[in-house]
């Protein structure tokens, strides 16, 4: 069942995972040398101005802590928010664009829909802060025509050269070439790229069809623009990181987490940085899946709750959910690259609770962030936050916060809730604090439902896995709201994302838009499909060759993104192994029917099916992490782990004397009945009355309703 965990071909390696977050950079080291098995974790403050500083310092610290020489590290896996931050903060490169005459402003017009319905003063970010300024978008004559890609107007090569010379004079870092209908015929894009590279040999140059070979001009142009915008600085960062690591004596190859949940080499990440935009949050989902496998559950809803936001994703039958390509965007700009379906909402420990001008009780999305932080931090924050509510209710012990590393003041939390909520609403402080949690939990539950129920997934068959520092505080309440089967608090809720880095595999995706009606496909169409997949597979094989992945470690998956003829949105249908023949297409059509029905609640059995984009996923297995098993405890009342008892208020408003257990002293198959609080260095797990927590073999805790006898 848990395949990647069983496959312990560790061959005595030392592997390190590094996940960079907004506040902290997390590290995991997995040492399998000499037949032993050791996992060491570490955490240092992030260095946002240059993430690589904290990465290198942290790795060295981790090595000291683990007593491993830096040169003994065999491979280093890295999840980074460098690319995403560059887009959000608009700190990318100066990019030039060469595009088809008559279509200078595709990036400026976008889909012509404004971001707000009921607003006159709204901002249009793609116009007010464009990735490529209009002055640097130049047009040249050329025209490719649909539906066959024939050339109506040949490329004006002199105009391309003149544009490149102008860009050189302007000192631009990067150039994109994006022509209409290049997904049908890329000859003009390739020729223009060669000319630009001649004129600007040092520039970062890419074409729209090589970055994403898919139909729909705005989305494709936006994707290539994004790639070039983040390309130069992302390459610089990755090279700098490699340099710093070498300088510190760490010669291990570096692998980078991709938005699709796979990992890629540094070289590949430099060529296609647009694949890194979800590098940060992807690790958490992968870690969630691995934890699920370790716990023998294949259906998991993950929620990673941090200070300002919560990331939600669904794992079904052990498979990660990939976002529909029509929904993949970063900072409101579309990027047509496969991304895990991770929904981020503005709800976390720092979310501020307040009454608005009309007296409505609101929680979030505004956050107190790291500065000033919740009121109880005593750093100048006066508005009450979700964390303050937890403190007031006795769910977070002030003296144990971050293992006692951070002093917090419960009186400040109480005062904030009293002043801003309880008094104006005429509620007790306890009821106001419970209200804060009830609203934030419902906000999160609605977001979970939008990603599950709304997509045809029944949460009653799913385990809710709540991680991130604040996750296990909310886990059971959320599980109850969404009717999840049970709830898991992973062994290391605070570093699940870093763990995820050590359990994924190399993964590359290749696409081609080939519009063919499957229902009526004849021999010629079958041959075109077969040929396109063969070409894509060859591209994948070449990449895996260059990564040195042995044949027996490779796998390929084929997908057709299909729709009923006339529809505008495609869904992913699986293509069975074997030749592309009539039988194969029937299987694709059947799969589309099932997926369509699951997603929309309806499907058509009398409508023709059209393939739009072919996708090939090439994977290369890498080694994986297996956490050590705990000793067997099997105790119904693990008295060894009991620390002390304090009053805690639960959701029904009752304050109960509630024992605190130290998580590091719990053993496998120990059970703890609610009410109870299980504490560890950077996380607290709440077990309400009526629930039982059971420790699994590797230390993960599953919490379920107490069986009624």
């Amino acid at each position, binding site marked *: 069942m848990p395949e990647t965990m069983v496959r312990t071909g560790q061959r005595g390696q030392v592997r390190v995972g590094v996940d960079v977050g907004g506040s902290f950079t997390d590290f995991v080291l997995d040492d399998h040398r000499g037949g032993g098995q050791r996992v060491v974790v570490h955490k240092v403050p992030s260095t946002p101005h240059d993430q690589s500083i904290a990465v290198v310092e942290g790795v060295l610290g981790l090595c000291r802590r683990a007593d491993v020489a830096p040169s003994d590290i065999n491979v280093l896996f890295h999840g980074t928010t460098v690319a995403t931050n560059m887009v959000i903060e608009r700190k990318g490169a100066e990019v030039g664009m060469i595009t088809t005459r*008559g*279509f*200078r*402003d*595709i990036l*400026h*017009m976008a*889909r*012509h*829909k*404004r971001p*707000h*319905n*009921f*607003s*006159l*003063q*709204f*901002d*249009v970010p793609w*116009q*007010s802060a464009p990735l490529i*300024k*209009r*002055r640097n978008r130049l047009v040249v004559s050329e025209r490719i*025509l*649909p539906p066959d890609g024939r050339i109506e107007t040949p490329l004006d090569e002199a105009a391309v050269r003149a544009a490149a010379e*102008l860009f050189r004079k*302007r*000192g631009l870092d990067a150039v994109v070439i994006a022509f*209409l*209908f290049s997904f049908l015929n890329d000859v003009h894009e390739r020729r223009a790229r060669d000319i630009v590279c001649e004129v600007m040999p040092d520039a970062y140059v890419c074409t729209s069809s090589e970055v994403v070979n898919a*139909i*729909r*001009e705005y*989305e494709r142009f936006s994707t290539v623009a994004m790639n070039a915008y983040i390309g130069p600085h992302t390459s610089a960062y990755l090279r700098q990181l490699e340099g710093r690591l070498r300088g510190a004596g760490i010669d291990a190859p570096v692998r980078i987490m991709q938005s699709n949940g796979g990992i890629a080499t540094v070289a590949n990440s430099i060529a296609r940085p647009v694949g890194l935009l979800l590098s940060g949050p992807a690790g958490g989902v992968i870690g969630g899946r691995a934890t699920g496998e370790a716990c023998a559950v294949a259906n998991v809803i993950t929620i990673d709750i941090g200070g300002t936001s919560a990331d939600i994703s669904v794992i079904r039958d052990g498979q990660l959910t990939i976002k529909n390509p029509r929904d993949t965007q970063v900072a409101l700009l579309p990027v047509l690259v496969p991304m895990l379906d991770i929904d981020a909402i503005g709800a976390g420990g720092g979310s501020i609770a307040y009454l*608005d*001008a*009309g*007296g*409505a*009780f*609101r929680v979030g999305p505004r956050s107190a962030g790291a500065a000033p932080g919740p009121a109880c931090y005593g750093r100048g924050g006066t508005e009450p936050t979700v964390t303050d509510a937890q403190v007031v209710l006795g769910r977070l012990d002030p003296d144990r916060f971050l293992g006692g590393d951070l002093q917090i003041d419960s009186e400040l939390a109480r005062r904030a809730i009293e002043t801003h909520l309880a008094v104006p609403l005429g509620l007790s402080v306890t009821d106001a604090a419970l*209200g804060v949690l*009830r*609203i934030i939990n*419902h906000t999160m539950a*609605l977001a979970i439902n*939008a990603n599950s129920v*709304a997509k045809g997934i029944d949460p009653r068959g799913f385990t809710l896995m709540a991680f991130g520092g604040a996750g296990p505080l909310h886990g059971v309440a959320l599980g109850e709201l969404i009717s999840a089967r049970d709830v898991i608090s992973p062994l290391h809720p605070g570093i699940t994302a870093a763990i995820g880095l050590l359990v994924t595999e190399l993964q590359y995706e290749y696409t081609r838009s080939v519009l063919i009606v499957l229902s009526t496909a004849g021999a010629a169409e079958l041959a075109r499909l077969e040929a396109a997949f063969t070409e894509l597979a060859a591209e994948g094989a070449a990449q895996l060759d260059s990564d040195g992945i042995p044949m027996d470690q490779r796998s390929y998956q084929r997908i057709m993104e299909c729709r*009923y003829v*006339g*529809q*505008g*949105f495609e869904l992913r249908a699986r293509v069975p192994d074997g030749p592309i023949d009539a039988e194969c297409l029937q299987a694709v059509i059947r799969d589309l029917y099932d997926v369509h029905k699951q997603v*929309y*609640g*309806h499907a*058509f059995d009398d*409508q023709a099916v059209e393939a739009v984009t072919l996708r090939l996923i090439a994977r290369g297995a890498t080694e994986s992490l297996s956490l050590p098993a705990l000793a067997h405890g099997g105790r119904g009342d693990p008295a060894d782990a009991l620390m002390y008892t304090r009053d805690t208020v639960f959701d029904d408003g009752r304050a109960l004397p509630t024992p605190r257990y130290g998580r590091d002293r719990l053993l496998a198959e120990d059970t703890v009945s609610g009410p109870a609080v299980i504490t560890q260095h950077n996380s607290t797990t709440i077990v309400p009355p009526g629930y039982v927590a059971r420790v699994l073999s590797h230390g993960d805790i599953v919490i379920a309703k107490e069986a009624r006898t």
Partner: protein
Amino acid sequence: MTETVDPISLQVIGGALHAIAEQMGTVLYRMSYSSIIRESQDLGAGLFDRDFNTLAESDSTPMHIGSLPGYLRGIEKSVPLDDWKPGDLVIHNHPYFGASHSPDIAIVMPVFHEGALVGFSANTAHHVDIGAATPGLIIDVPDMYAEGMLFNGLKLYEEGRRNEALWRYIQGNTRVPGLVMGDLAAQIASAELGVRRFQELLTTYGTETVMQATRQLMDYSEAMLRRELAKIPDGEYVAEGFMDDDGRNRGQHLPVKVTVRITGDSVEVDLTGSSAQVPTAFNVPFEGSTKVACFFAFRALLLDTYTNPDPVPANEGSFRPVKVTAPRGSIYNPIAPAAAEARFTQIQRVVDLIIKALAPVLPDRCTAGNAATLSFAAYSGVRRSGDYWVFLEVNEAAMGGRPASDGPDTVEELMRNTRNNPLEDLGMHLPLICDRYEMRDDVFPGAGKFRGGMGVVKSQRFLEPGSITHEADRHHDRPWGIFGGQEGHGGKVEIHNARNPAAVTQHPAKFSGLLTAAGDVMSYLSPCGGGYGDPLERDPGKVLDDILDDYITPEHAADAYGVVVMAVDDGYGWALDPAATTALRAEVRSRAST
């Protein structure tokens, strides 16, 4: 007497209602077939109570938001409340019984809980073709019977059983049954989903609690709007403009007059003084369109979701403080059987004139003149197989300058907010190819401290013979400048043949069933917004940006903005000349003051 729902539960139930409406909208546009729904998202979906109050609506296209209660009131005339049974489904589009206009077909299902009718799950979507006189759109027709199929509260399903005769009738009376029937299926799936989710919510919290919460949520939205209305000084605020013509009687401008009366925390919009109803389809259904435009205007002006961080629930409450008056027999309240299908540009102008009327008292919330139009093009033809193809395209325009920012260029303004169609997707499926789609370069944007937005130019070439019906306005009444800003520009429609690009003919904004030959190219150039504030106060850096980005020329920078640039050899060509700019601006100011 039902107990007041506590503020915490209120927030929880409000969030759930909103989520249901959003999901209904998503299913509808994701599943649908025609580009007008699936790409443009020309649709609305929501939940309603027994009194037809909007409880929640999807955040899709403003025109649809707020129109559904009118449909429900219209349906009641043929299906009284006690005639509804579980599993019923009504189809409705009658412009004189509450519909927004006839192509916007509503699908309505009752929501029963514990045996009682609690409310409705409903949606509207714009259908490509309902068998009207010309494919897709109509302008110059005699009456509403030329609009095509009219459904006046007909049960398409009775207790879960589909009326096959009606279904086949619809199938046989549209030019594009493949699109229309698929779109109806999507609407039905969306309505069913709304019923199911609403019932689940009622089961979770109890009917009493949920309905009491909805009343409180409506009161909240109403109070939020009234709070803002109360800040506006009482009085009568008037603005006027005119429309090009009715699509038949060329050269006869149609006046639009908007009087906004503020009394305490209420407002009346009075359209008296606007044109009498016209003999073509260029009239506006009162319930489903005129009123909705006025509701929109005050939400956008006073509860702007960009400047106001706390979202106000989209429900009936925000309609209550707004009273709308339009004399019977006027273009905004026509008398049957006048056709009333082509109504969008008129209501855009109502919103724009409400903004203009209130601008003197809302200088920080208004805009300069917006394009306030709509270019709706129906391209069509008959394939060799004998099947029709019909494509409805919405062309964007631009907004006027604003108190703190330029008017957005090439954007869906005011009552509309659809998506464009990917040119590559169209090219793969239609005998139509786009030759040009970018910002206009034949005019300068309306100058101002914050300039007006630039309009769009879009050129579509027919590869085979076909026909076009085009619904638009505002070739003539240019968007105004405000507080010293300069006016923007009117629109244009030009046609040429690709074999002879120099022979360009000019066309009015609206025309019906124009036959086209292979190679004919229609270019639509949208209006451009007016400027806000004195152009001499515009940041010279922004003026330089506009030169470098080819919005304006150095000559125009000097003439309109008093900004002087000098040639430089840095690859960009121009840099500011601050001293000369200061001098020129001083000179222009002193000239103006003498």
